[in-house]
């Protein structure tokens, strides 16, 4: 296990919600709610999750744009949240960011040489050979023609602009690059080039990446380790192969099942044909019993021929102002209602049909009351390919009371 270059401990970022005449704080958007992770030197940690899960906020805290509400961010063992102004400026040389949208991340009124050379101007650095030469070298490093230094961003394509953004981030020779969805705004063909560039730079410069994305395929390609976020918390974390091939958290399983498969014929493979996910059935059975929602229509198909249906999570993510009690995912969890623990109260005080939430979902009470810790679940069974421990910075941990690999009901029968 390599020594971590970046360590985050119990990081919390709350945005106060103010209301009324006196601007009193009436609550907080819990954008990041107790996140811990570590990034090894020269490694890539992929951070995935749906919109609003706090990925970008976490990234912004790490590069120092936002100050955390509490928690520690350790770069090379030094807590940067306690640094003074000068120390923070130094930190900015160690941690830099690549932005999502190459069309807004470059100032349209500055030439490429001004943009890439700005870090030198800000920090008063005069690199050997002069700033002009240094800018030219940086442009060459990211695969751009140094002769284009006097051009303006609008004269470049999206992929080229993203390269300019990467060159700017590399100017201060950072140790860590936080990439906030660096390829999601690019054409698929250009995505590959930029990803390859990032991988090449990692080998060449020994960079560590925190790679924020919602594209699971891209993350699988570039990341060594993967962390899955939901509602400001990490719900599953581990080496890429284990998380992808043996996901244990129902949310991760749902995310993976939603990855589009380019080949239509694959979508109808029989059960067991492709390891990652088989589902729709488990949700379907419970929905079918209740038959209160329209999802039941898909179940009829699902019961006979097992389809590789995506797990469809119902509803929107809960508001981060008022997250659900206990496990934050229990309101949308597809697994919890299917568990034997999800029984109605043993002593019903009134007929079940009269209950106000009669048509609603029942989940195990532990999901509603207890926040699951991020623990390893070795008993759940590893994937067929055990990962070399030396290669993995983090062990596979899951925040779920009932974490287990996906079991498809009926397959064993």
């Amino acid at each position, binding site marked *: 296990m390599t020594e971590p270059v970046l360590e985050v401990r119990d990081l919390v970022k709350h945005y106060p919600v103010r209301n009324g005449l006196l601007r009193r704080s009436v609550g907080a958007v819990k954008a990041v709610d107790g996140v811990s992770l570590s990034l090894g030197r020269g490694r890539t940690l992929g951070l995935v999750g749906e919109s609003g899960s706090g990925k970008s906020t976490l990234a*912004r805290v790490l590069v120092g744009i936002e100050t955390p509400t509490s928690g520690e961010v350790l770069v090379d063992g030094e807590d940067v949240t306690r640094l003074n102004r000068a120390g923070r400026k130094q930190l900015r040389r160690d941690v830099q960011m690549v932005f999502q949208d190459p069309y807004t*991340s470059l100032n*349209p009124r500055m030439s490429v040489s001004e943009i890439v050379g700005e870090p030198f101007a800000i920090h008063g650095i005069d690199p050997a050979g002069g700033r002009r030469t240094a800018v030219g070298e940086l442009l060459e490093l990211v695969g751009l023609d140094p002769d284009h230094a006097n051009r303006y961003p609008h004269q470049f394509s999206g992929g080229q602009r993203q390269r300019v953004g990467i060159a700017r981030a590399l100017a201060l020779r950072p140790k860590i690059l936080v990439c906030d969805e660096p390829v999601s705004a690019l054409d698929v063909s250009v995505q590959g080039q930029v990803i390859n560039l990032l991988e090449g730079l990692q080998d060449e410069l020994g960079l560590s990446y925190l790679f924020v994305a919602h594209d699971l395929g891209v993350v699988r390609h570039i990341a060594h380790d993967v962390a899955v976020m939901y509602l400001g918390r990490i719900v599953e974390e581990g080496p890429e192969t284990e998380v992808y091939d043996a996901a244990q958290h129902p949310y991760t399983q749902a995310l993976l099942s939603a990855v589009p498969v380019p080949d239509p014929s694959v979508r109808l493979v029989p059960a067991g044909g492709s390891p990652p996910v088989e589902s729709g059935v488990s949700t379907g059975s419970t929905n079918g019993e209740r038959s209160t929602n329209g999802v039941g229509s898909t179940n009829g198909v699902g019961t006979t021929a097992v389809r590789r249906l995506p797990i469809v999570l119902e509803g929107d993510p809960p508001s981060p102002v008022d997250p659900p009690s206990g496990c934050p995912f229990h309101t949308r969890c597809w697994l919890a209602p299917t568990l034997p623990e999800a029984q109605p109260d043993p002593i019903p005080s009134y007929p079940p049909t009269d209950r106000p939430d009669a048509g609603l979902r029942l989940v195990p009470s532990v999901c509603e009351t207890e926040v699951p810790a991020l623990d390893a679940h070795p008993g759940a069974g590893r994937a067929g390919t055990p990962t070399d421990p030396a290669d993995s910075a983090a062990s596979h941990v899951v925040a779920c009371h009932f974490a287990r690999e996906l079991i498809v009901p009926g397959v064993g029968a």
Partner: protein
Amino acid sequence: MSEAASAATGNAAGAASRTLATDAWRSLRRRPDVIISAVIIVFFVVMAVFPTLFTSVDPRHCIIGDAKIKPQGFGNEFPLGTDSFGCDTLAQLAHGSRPSLLLALVVVGTALVIGVTLGLLAGYYLGWVDFFVSRAVEVFLVIPYLLAAMLLLSLFKNVDLGSGAFATIMLPAIVLTLFGWMGYARYVRASVLEAKNLDYVTAARALGASDLRIMFRHVLPNAIGPVTALVPTAIAGVIGAEAVLAFLGIGVRPPAISWGIMIENGSSWVLGGYPHMLLVPLTCLLATVLSLVVLGDALRDALDPRLTA
């Protein structure tokens, strides 16, 4: 990469050495409307600095017997006629250009600096800075400026400001600046709010740039656009407003003359058969303002890298 290259620069050899300023100069030089406007502006600036080049007559040498003479054409005694007091119109025009243009320059310049600074600070920092700036804008918008002008008049009534070119325009400059900065502040605040959340500002912050650097290198250049469109019309507004103030006695101090006073005096004689008294100064004002509009637009376009390619 090559398609961008060929589109941007026909002459690849000079591509590296060309800067935005030389590009701007090149494109401006080729536009006839820009050249004409520049000539007009230079003409009036020369007139303001050296009025005696254009007339040898004293503008205050007025003989009531010569009143209301129509333009006689150049080479005669009164090339552009006389006004209702018998003063030579050409002489007044030439000598009136200095206070008018100086006033417009001072007022718009000062108001621009105040408005842009306050708008930038309010939009960038928000919070209590924004609270105070926004309330100040509202207060100054609500106060009727003529009322305030009269108040200032009584305050400065007995103050001797001297008789230099600057002193003659001091009072109207103060009043007009005081009530002229709010528009800029509002426009700049609004576009700063929009510009400051863009990724390139965040990127600069992540690099450790100071607030000043972010404001002046990243936010302001991208937020100033809407304001530049206000400036030429504001100049016309100042020259017109000065004429109104002249009525109250706090305009350009007599015996100095201004275009505003000429327009004010001449407007009452348009229907009396002497339209030249209005048309002569008005034409000069319009020519100045239109030239500034054309120059301002052309300059803004030329300095925007997105439009030059």
